[in-house]
């Protein structure tokens, strides 16, 4: 009897990123469309976002919110802190963090979907929040200097990163010593076969 070789997980990373961008482009442009995940203000309420956090945040950023948890329930961002939001989407968490850290603090949100970046930048401009900026980038290559952040937040994004070891490596590089990770994501309780991991539609749906 032969020894069965473990199945290899071979993914076309560019194809995967393209499919994810396509999905979240729709969430940015047509958030009311209805997806396999909840979105918008009802989702924020479901995840215990406080009404006070949402006050003054432009509705576009709230409507396209598609997180899987609430990073702020792990503790507030403190005045003056530097925050990186990995996969900032339409900007809701970054905009909340920017108000928590105040004018002496800074927030960098990064995302790979142009329509999401556009929403987030419009919202930051509309709410005159000058301590937050949105950059184009991948979780595996954060466009942030070593040791810059006091806190890294992320909401429903790590599961979409094709190279999770690289993404976690970046989450180790970017914080200062003692820096915190406050992450919302997903946990899969049943084994996912390698054949399923290769199906791009399972990553996005």
């Amino acid at each position: 009897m032969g020894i069965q070789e473990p199945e290899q997980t071979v993914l076309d990373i560019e194809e995967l990123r393209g499919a994810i961008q396509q999905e979240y482009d729709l969430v940015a442009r047509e958030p009311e469309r209805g997806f396999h995940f909840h979105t918008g203000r009802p989702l924020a309420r479901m995840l215990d976002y406080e009404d006070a956090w949402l006050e003054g945040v432009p509705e576009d950023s709230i409507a396209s919110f598609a997180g899987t948890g609430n990073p702020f329930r792990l503790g507030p961002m403190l005045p003056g802190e530097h925050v990186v939001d990995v996969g900032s989407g339409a900007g809701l968490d970054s905009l909340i963090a920017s108000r928590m850290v105040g004018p002496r603090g800074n927030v960098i949100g990064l995302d790979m979907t142009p329509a999401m970046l556009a929403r987030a930048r419009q919202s930051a401009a509309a709410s005159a929040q000058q301590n937050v900026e949105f950059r184009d980038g991948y979780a595996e290559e954060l466009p942030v200097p070593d040791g810059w952040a006091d806190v890294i937040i992320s909401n429903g994004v790590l599961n979409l990163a094709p190279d999770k070891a690289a993404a976690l490596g970046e989450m180790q590089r970017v914080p200062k010593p003692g820096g915190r990770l406050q992450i919302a994501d997903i946990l899969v309780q049943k084994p996912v076969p390698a054949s399923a991991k290769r199906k791009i539609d399972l990553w996005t749906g």
Partner: protein
Amino acid sequence: MAAGFIDFAITWRAKVYADAPQASSAEDFGTLGITFFARKPLNEQERDDYLARQLCELPARVEDA
């Protein structure tokens, strides 16, 4: 924890995909939304102390009688 973090803890979990507008494969794999906390150690000493505490907390192995 992998990648050199300390104080790792999953603090919340919930069925965040339940009743979403479109059907999802998430249910097939028992997918939950979670939040987790971790911290980058202040220095190597703090990391080593943390790892030593984790090793001490491993349950002793009980051999079959």
